[in-house]
C-alpha cells in the first residue's frame, strides 16, 4: 500500500481503513466567509470610495514631477561605492544563538545577513533567528537614549550619578552584582575583570534564560570539567537523542545541522547514512527528522536513559543501575549503538543533572569521547550556573546586594521567579540595566544605559578554544547608545575605546601563539577581514572518567497525570527577538502556526478531555493558552513554547501568546523545563490560529517521494519509479524549447532538508517580502515566496514527518503564463518564469492556474508603495522609515493588487553575470547563490546552470532520485527534488506498482 500523507488531522486516514475519528477535533477552516472589516460594504461606501478615488486621482495627476535630490558624500569613504554592496565579516551572538556572518551593507545600512563560509563552526550556514536579526537592528522600540528613573537623560549625567553611587557602595563595602548572559567574548570578560578590580566586592553571574547547566554539572562530576562538550554529529553513524532539539534550538543548531545533514546525505559515492533515533514527548524539529521517533514522557526519560545504559553496560561487563524497567524498548537502539562504538552519539536535552551523568556514562562506555564529542575542546556556550540566580534573588530580598547591574539579561520576563527578583531589585541602592533591545527588566531599574545592537558594535568571541571570531560595526549607532563594554569601562575609570581594548587583548593573548608570520597589524586586518581566526588547539584526548559518578540507582518521579513540557520556539528562540515581525510571521516548522504560542496536546488526550482545537485551557491556573492538537504528541504531555507573551518588548511582540517562563521549575541545582502532575482545565473562550498548514494544499498527489536506505542501495531510483514513467509517456506537439546561454535550475535534496525555516526568512529579507500580520494569515494571504510543506504519514499517534520546501517551480511550460491577459508573466530566455509587477493588473488568473500554489497576491498595500495612503495595511509597522532601511534597494516593493513570487533571486543572477562580464570571463558553477541556498545550514538547496553539463545542478537533475512536482502535468519545472531516504527497515507494503 502506498503511503498516505496528510497535512492536518482532518486529512488523516487511519491505515486500517477505519474512519477518521479526529476530524471533528480540528477547526482549521479558512475564515474567508468573514470580511476583514466586519461590516458589509454598501452602495454608499462604494460611492464614497468612488468619489475619493476620483478626487485623489485628480490631485495626484495634477502633481508635477517632484524635484528629486541627489546628495553625494562630501568625502566618499573608500569602502562604500554607491550602488554596490559591501560585505563585512562579523559575528552574531546574543547570548543564545551563535553564527559567524557576513553583513551585506548597501550605502551604509545593513540589509541582509549571510553565513560566513570561512568559519569552521557554522560553515556559511545560519538560522532563521540570525537571518532575522538584521530587522531587529531597526526595531523602533529600541531604547534611544539613556534614562534615569524613566526620564531620558544625558550620558554624562547618568555616568556621573552611577559612578558616585558605585563609589559610595565601595566605601560602605556593599556588594555589587553584574548579571549577564553567557559571555563568550574574552575581551568582554576582561572588561568585567577590570570593573571588578575597581570595585572588588563585585560578583559576576552568568544567567541563561534557557539553561543547559545540567550538562556542565554532569561533566564536572564525571570528568571534573565544568564545560559543555563540542559535538561532531557527522562522525556519528548512530545518533540517539533524548529530547534535545539539536536541529532547531539546542546549543548550536546551525553547526549541528551542518554536521547532521553531512552524515545523512547519500549519493553515488556514499551509499550510507547515519541512523537517528529520537526519544521525546512533543513533536520537535529534530524528532520529526529522526528515522525512529520514540514517544516518551519527560518524567520517564531518565528511566529510559538508565535502561539504555544498563543494556550497554551489561554487554560490556560494567555495573548496571538499579531502576524499573523501561516503558519503551531500548534493546534495538542499544544494539545499534554497540555496533558502532566510537562512531555513535547520545545527546540529551534535559536539564536534569542525573540524566546527563548517565548519558555521559553511555557515551564513555561507547568510546565516543574524542570522536563524536570532545570534552577537551568545549563549546563555550551556556555557562550560566542556575543556582547562582536563586542565591542572588534571595540576597536581593534580604537587602544584601547594594548594586545590581543587569547587562543584556531580562529576568523580569524569563526568570521563573520574576516577581521575587523584582521585589528584591527594589531593595538595591543602585540598579542599572544595559539592554540592547526593549525589554521588561530595563524599566524596572533606575538607570537605563542602552547598549549597541550586535550589528553596531565591536566584539570578539571564542566559541571553542582556539576558535576566535570578531564582530565589527556595520552601521553607525542609530540611537544614542553606547557599547555596554565601554559603559562598564567608564564606570571602572578606564578611558579607552572598546575596540582598542580588543586589539590589545588580541595582541597580547592571541597573536603571539597564532603562528601568523606577518605583523600584528596584518594579523588583525586579516582576522577582521575573515571574521574568524582559527588555530588548532588540542590533540588532547585524555579524559579522567570517574566511574563512581554514575549513580547506582535513581529516584524515579511519579509519571501519573498530565505533564508539561516547555520548549524553545524555533521561530523566536528564547523570546529575545520576539519583537521581530519576520520571526513572528514565520510558521513553526511542525505546527505551521504563526503569530502564536499554544498548548500542543495529543489527539487522544483531546478526545478524552473533549477539547477541540482552538479551545482554551488553563495550565495550573497560571497560564491560559489555546489548544493545538498535535499528531505524534505523547498522550499525557502538553508542550508549550517559551519566548512568547512579552509584555514590554514593542508593539509587534505584545499580546502574542502567553509567557510560559513562570512554569519553569527549579530543583536539584538546575532549572527544569518540564513539570509533572499538571492541572489542566478548559476555560471559556475560543481561539483561531493563523496556520499556514493547510493553505495551498496539493490534494494528495505524489509530491513526496521517499524510499529507505536498503531499497536505495538496491535501486537508486526506488520510490521514484513514477519519474521514469512520466518521462516515458511525455509527448508534446511543440518543439522542445532551446535555451541559448543559460538555463537556470534549482534542486532541493529532501534528504538533507530538516525544515529549519532559515531559508524562508532569508528569502523574505532578500526579496522585501512583506509581513501581512495574523489576521491576513488567517485568510491564507501570507506572502512568503518560499514555504515549507510538512506532511505526516502513517499513525497519527507517532507519524513519520517529511518536509518539502516549495517555491515557484519556474516551469518551462508554465500554466500561469498563458492565462495572463496582459502578458505580465512570461518565460525568460534563461528559463526563469518572470513577473513584471508593473504590468500586472491583478486578475489572479495565474494564481488559479498554478498547480503549485506558489504565487502570492497583494491583497493590501503592505509596503506603502501606493500613492494612496488609505490603502496601506501595515500590522507590524514595517512601513516606518526606520524599518524600511532593511529593504533591498535592488528589488522593487510591490503595490496592492499585483501578484508576486519567487524570482530565483534574479537580482543575484544579474549581479554575478555582470561581474563575469566586467571581468571578461565565463560564469563559474556555484558562483550564483540565491538567498535560500546561501543560508541553508543543511546545504539542501542547489542552484546552477542546467546548460552546463558539469554543473552540480545538472548532476542533481541526472540523479535517479530527482523528480519534479506534478511532473505528469508536463509543466517541465526547472526546480527538482531528490527523494527522501530513510534509514529504516524496508516496508514490503511500499513496493507497489504505480498505476498510470
Amino acid at each position, binding site marked *: 500500500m502506498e503511503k498516505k500523507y496528510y497535512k492536518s488531522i482532518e486529512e488523516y486516514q487511519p491505515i486500517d481503513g477505519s474512519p477518521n475519528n479526529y476530524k471533528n477535533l480540528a477547526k482549521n477552516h479558512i475564515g474567508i466567509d468573514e470580511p476583514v472589516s466586519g461590516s458589509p460594504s454598501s452602495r454608499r461606501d462604494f460611492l464614497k470610495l468612488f468619489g475619493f478615488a476620483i478626487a485623489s486621482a485628480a490631485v495626484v495627476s495634477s502633481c508635477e514631477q517632484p524635484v528629486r535630490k541627489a546628495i553625494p558624500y*562630501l568625502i566618499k569613504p573608500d569602502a562604500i561605492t554607491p550602488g554596490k554592496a559591501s560585505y563585512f565579516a562579523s559575528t552574531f551572538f546574543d547570548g543564545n544563538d551563535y553564527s559567524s556572518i557576513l553583513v551585506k551593507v548597501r550605502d551604509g545600512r545593513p540589509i541582509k545577513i549571510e553565513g560566513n563560509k570561512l568559519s569552521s563552526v557554522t560553515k556559511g550556514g545560519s538560522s532563521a533567528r540570525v537571518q532575522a536579526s538584521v530587522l531587529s537592528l531597526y526595531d523602533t522600540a529600541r531604547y534611544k537614549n539613556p534614562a534615569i528613573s524613566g526620564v531620558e537623560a544625558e550620558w554624562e549625567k547618568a555616568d556621573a550619578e552611577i559612578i558616585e553611587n558605585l563609589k559610595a557602595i565601595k566605601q560602605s563595602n556593599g556588594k555589587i552584582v553584574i548579571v549577564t548572559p553567557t559571555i563568550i567574548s574574552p575581551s568582554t570578560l576582561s572588561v568585567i575583570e577590570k570593573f571588578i578590580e575597581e570595585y572588588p566586592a563585585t560578583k559576576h553571574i552568568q544567567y541563561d534564560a534557557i539553561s543547559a547547566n545540567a550538562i556542565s554539572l554532569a561533566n564536572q562530576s564525571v570528568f571534573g570539567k565544568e564545560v559543555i562538550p563540542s559535538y561532531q554529529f557527522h562522525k556519528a553513524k548512530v545518533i540517539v537523542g533524548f529530547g534535545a532539539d539539536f536541529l532547531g534550538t539546542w546549543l548550536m543548531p546551525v553547526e549541528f545541522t551542518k554536521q547532521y545533514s553531512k552524515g545523512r546525505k547519500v549519493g553515488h559515492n556514499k551509499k550510507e547514512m547515519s541512523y537517528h533515533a529520537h526519544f521525546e514527548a512533543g513533536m520537535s524539529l529534530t524528532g520529526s527528522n529522526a528515522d525512529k521517533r520514540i514517544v516518551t514522557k519527560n518524567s520517564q526519560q531518565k528511566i529510559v536513559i538508565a535502561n539504555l545504559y544498563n543494556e550497554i553496560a551489561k554487554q560490556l561487563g560494567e555495573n548496571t543501575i538499579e531502576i524499573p524497567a523501561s516503558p519503551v524498548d531500548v534493546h534495538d537502539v542499544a544494539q545499534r549503538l554497540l555496533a558502532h562504538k566510537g562512531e555513535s552519539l547520545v545527546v540529551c536535552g534535559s536539564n536534569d543533572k542525573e540524566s546527563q551523568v548517565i548519558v555521559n556514562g553511555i557515551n564513555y562506555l561507547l568510546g565516543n569521547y574524542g570522536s563524536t564529542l570532545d570534552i577537551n575542546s568545549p563549546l563555550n556556550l551556556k555557562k550560566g550556573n542556575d543556582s547562582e540566580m536563586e542565591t542572588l534573588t534571595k540576597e536581593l530580598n534580604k537587602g544584601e546586594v547594594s548594586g545590581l547591574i543587569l547587562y543584556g539579561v531580562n529576568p523580569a520576563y524569563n526568570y521563573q521567579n520574576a516577581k521575587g527578583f523584582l521585589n528584591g531589585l527594589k531593595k538595591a541602592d543602585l540598579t542599572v540595566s544595559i539592554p540592547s533591545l526593549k525589554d521588561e527588566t530595563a524599566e524596572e531599574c533606575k538607570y537605563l544605559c542602552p547598549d549597541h545592537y550586535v550589528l553596531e558594535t565591536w566584539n570578539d568571541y571564542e566559541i571553542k578554544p582556539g576558535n576566535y571570531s570578531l564582530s565589527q560595526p556595520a552601521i553607525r549607532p542609530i540611537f544614542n547608545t553606547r557599547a555596554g563594554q565601554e559603559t562598564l569601562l567608564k564606570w571602572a575609570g578606564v578611558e579607552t575605546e572598546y575596540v582598542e581594548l580588543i586589539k590589545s587583548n588580541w595582541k597580547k593573548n592571541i597573536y603571539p601563539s597564532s603562528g601568523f608570520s606577518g605583523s600584528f597589524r596584518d594579523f588583525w586586518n586579516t582576522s577582521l577581514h575573515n571574521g574568524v581566526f582559527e588555530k588548532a588547539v588540542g590533540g588532547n584526548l585524555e579524559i579522567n572518567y570517574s566511574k563512581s559518578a554514575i549513580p547506582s540507582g535513581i529516584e524515579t518521579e511519579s509519571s501519573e497525570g498530565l505533564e508539561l513540557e516547555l520548549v524553545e520556539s524555533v521561530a523566536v528562540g528564547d523570546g529575545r527577538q520576539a519583537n521581530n515581525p519576520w520571526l513572528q510571521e514565520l510558521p513553526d516548522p511542525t505546527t505551521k502556526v504563526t503569530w502564536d504560542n499554544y498548548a500542543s496536546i495529543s489527539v487522544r488526550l483531546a478526545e478524552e478531555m473533549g477539547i477541540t482545537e482552538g479551545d482554551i485551557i488553563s495550565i495550573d491556573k497560571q497560564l491560559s493558552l489555546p489548544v493545538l492538537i498535535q499528531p505524534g504528541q505523547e498522550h499525557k504531555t502538553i508542550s508549550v513554547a517559551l519566548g512568547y507573551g512579552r509584555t514590554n518588548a514593542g508593539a509587534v511582540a505584545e499580546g502574542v501568546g502567553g509567557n510560559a517562563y513562570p512554569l519553569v521549575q527549579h530543583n536539584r541545582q538546575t532549572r527544569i523545563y518540564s513539570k509533572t502532575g499538571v492541572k489542566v482545565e478548559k476555560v471559556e473562550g475560543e481561539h483561531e490560529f493563523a496556520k499556514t498548514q493547510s493553505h495551498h494544499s496539493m490534494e494528495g498527489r505524489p509530491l513526496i517521494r521517499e524510499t529507505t536506505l536498503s531499497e536505495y542501495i538496491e535501486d537508486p531510483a526506488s520510490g521514484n519509479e513514477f519519474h521514469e514513467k512520466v518521462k516515458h509517456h511525455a509527448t508534446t506537439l511543440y518543439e522542445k524549447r532551446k535555451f541559448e546561454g543559460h538555463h537556470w535550475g534549482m534542486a532541493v535534496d529532501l534528504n538533507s532538508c530538516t525544515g529549519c525555516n532559515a531559508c524562508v526568512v532569508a528569502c523574505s529579507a532578500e526579496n522585501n517580502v512583506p509581513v501581512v500580520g495574523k489576521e491576513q494569515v488567517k485568510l491564507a494571504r501570507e506572502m512568503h515566496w518560499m514555504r515549507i510543506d510538512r506532511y505526516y504519514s502513517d499513525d497519527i499517534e507517532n507519524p513519520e514527518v517529511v518536509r518539502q520546501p516549495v517555491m515557484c517551480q519556474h516551469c518551462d511550460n508554465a500554466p500561469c503564463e498563458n492565462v495572463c491577459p496582459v502578458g505580465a508573466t512570461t518565460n525568460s530566455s534563461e528559463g526563469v518564469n518572470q513577473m513584471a509587477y508593473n504590468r500586472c493588473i491583478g486578475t489572479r488568473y495565474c494564481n488559479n492556474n498554478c498547480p503549485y500554489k506558489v504565487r502570492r497576491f497583494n491583497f493590501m498595500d503592505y509596503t506603502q508603495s501606493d500613492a494612496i495612503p488609505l490603502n496601506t495595511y501595515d500590522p507590524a509597522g514595517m512601513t516606518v522609515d526606520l524599518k524600511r532601511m532593511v529593504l533591498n534597494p535592488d528589488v522593487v516593493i510591490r503595490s496592492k493588487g499585483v501578484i508576486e513570487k519567487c524570482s530565483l533571486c534574479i537580482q543575484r543572477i544579474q549581479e554575478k553575470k555582470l561581474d563575469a562580464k566586467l571581468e571578461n570571463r565565463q560564469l563559474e558553477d556555484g558562483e550564483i547563490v540565491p538567498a535560500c541556498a546561501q543560508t541553508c545550514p543543511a546545504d539542501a538547496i542547489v542552484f546552477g546552470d542546467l546548460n552546463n553539463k558539469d554543473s552540480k545542478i545538472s548532476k542533481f537533475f541526472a540523479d535517479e532520485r530527482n523528480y519534479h512536482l506534478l511532473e505528469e502535468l508536463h509543466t517541465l519545472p526547472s526546480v527538482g527534488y531528490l527523494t527522501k531516504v530513510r534509514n529504516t527497515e524496508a516496508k514490503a507494503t511500499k513496493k507497489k506498482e504505480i498505476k498510470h
Partner: protein
Amino acid sequence: MVLTRAGICKFLQHFFAKLRNFLPFSFVKENVLVSTYLSFITKLNRMRKFLLRKNKKINVVFFVYLFVTISGFLFSNYALGEDKESVISEGYSHEEITRGERFFKGLLPFDRNFESCVSCHNIKPVDTLNWNPSAMDIALKYADKDFAAFEKVILEPSGKKMSEVHKNINIESEDLKTVKIYLDEMAHKGHSKEKINVLWLIGIIFLVLVILWALAELIFVQKIKYKLVPVVFLLGATGWLLMILYQEATNLGRQEAYAPLQPIKFSHEVHAGLNQTDCFYCHHTAEYSKSAGIPSANVCINCHIIVREGTNSGKFEIDKIHYAVDNDIPIEWVRVHNLPDHVFFSHAQHVGAGKLDCKECHGPVEEMNVLRQHADLSMGWCLDCHKTRKVQFVDNDYYKTYKEFHEQIAAGKMDSVTVAQIGGTDCMKCHY
C-alpha cells in the same frame, strides 16, 4: 452631514488647505477662495430658481454661465494676486527696504555711472544660465554676515573677474547698507513661488466650451444651417482634447529636456567641453557600479584646491564647494535623470560591459552649461536600442557560454549578436 453654510465653510477651508500642498500654483488665502466659491454656489442656485420660475429648459445660457463662473473661480487665484506679508528684519523700516531695492535695481542714485546690480544679479529665477550669482544667492550667503564683510566684498573684491566688473561702483556706505537690508529681507522671505503657465488651462477650457457650444447647437439651438459645421467643430475639439490627454498620459513621469537649475552653477561645457575632463574622472563608478555616481565633493576639491576662481563665474560658485567641505554641509544637487522605482538600471552593465559611450544616452553633455535630459528614458527608447545594439560577443569571454551562436558565427551564418538575442528584451532584465 448637515449642509449648513458653516459646515461647508469649514469643509472647504480644510479641503483647500490640503489641496494647496498638492497644487503646483499657490492659492490665495483659503477664506478668499471659500467666499468666492460660496458666492458662486449662491449665484448658481439663484440662476436655477430663476430658470425654474421661468419654466424654461435648462438651456445653453446656464452652461455658459456655469463655465464662465468656473473659469472665473480658477482665475481668481491669479487675478487676486498674492497677499504677501512683509517681514521686516531687525527693526528696519519698509522704507529702507524699498530704498535698498531701488539701489539694487539701478533706480538710485540718480547720477549713476556704473552698471546696476540687477543687470548682473537676477532677482527672479531665470531659465538660462546666468554665470553671476543671483540676488537670492548673494542674499543667502550674506544673510548672517555683517555689513563690513558685505561692503568689503562689493567694493574691494579679491577675485579677478569681480574686481573687473565692480571697479566702477561708487556708492555711499549708507546707501549700500540699505541694499544689504533689502537682500536680508529677501533671504528672510525666501523664494517667491513660481507661477505656472496657465495657457494650457485656457486652452482646455476653450476646447471644452467649443464642444459644449457644438453640442448645444446640435441639440437645442440649431441655428446654423449646415449641420456639418458644428459636427466638424465637435469632432475637432474632442479629437484635440483626446490628443492632449493621450500625450499628457504617456508623458506622465517622463522628463525629456528636463534641465533644472543646480545649487552650484556647474557647467559640463566648461569641464567636459573646454577642459576636456574625462567623464570617468568625476563619474568614476560608472564602469563598475549600478550608479554612475554624482562625484563627492572631495573629487571637486582635487582640482579646485588650486582653481579657486572660474573664468565665467568668478569665485562665488567655487566657494560653495569649499563652504560645503569646510562646514560639513552636503551639496544637494537636483537629480536630472530619474527612472521609476520598478526599473533596474545599471551603468556598469552599459558602460563597463556594453562599452557604450556616455553620449549615446546623455547626449552632447560637453555642450551643456545647464545639464539637460537628452533622451526621454521611456521603455520604448530602451527597447529600440536593445533590439539593434550588438554586444561584445567575441571580445568578452563571458559570452563563450553561448556556444551555438559562436558556431554560427564561425560558420558565417551570423556576424554579430544583438542584446535581444541573448535575452535583452526579457522583462526580468530590468524589472525585478
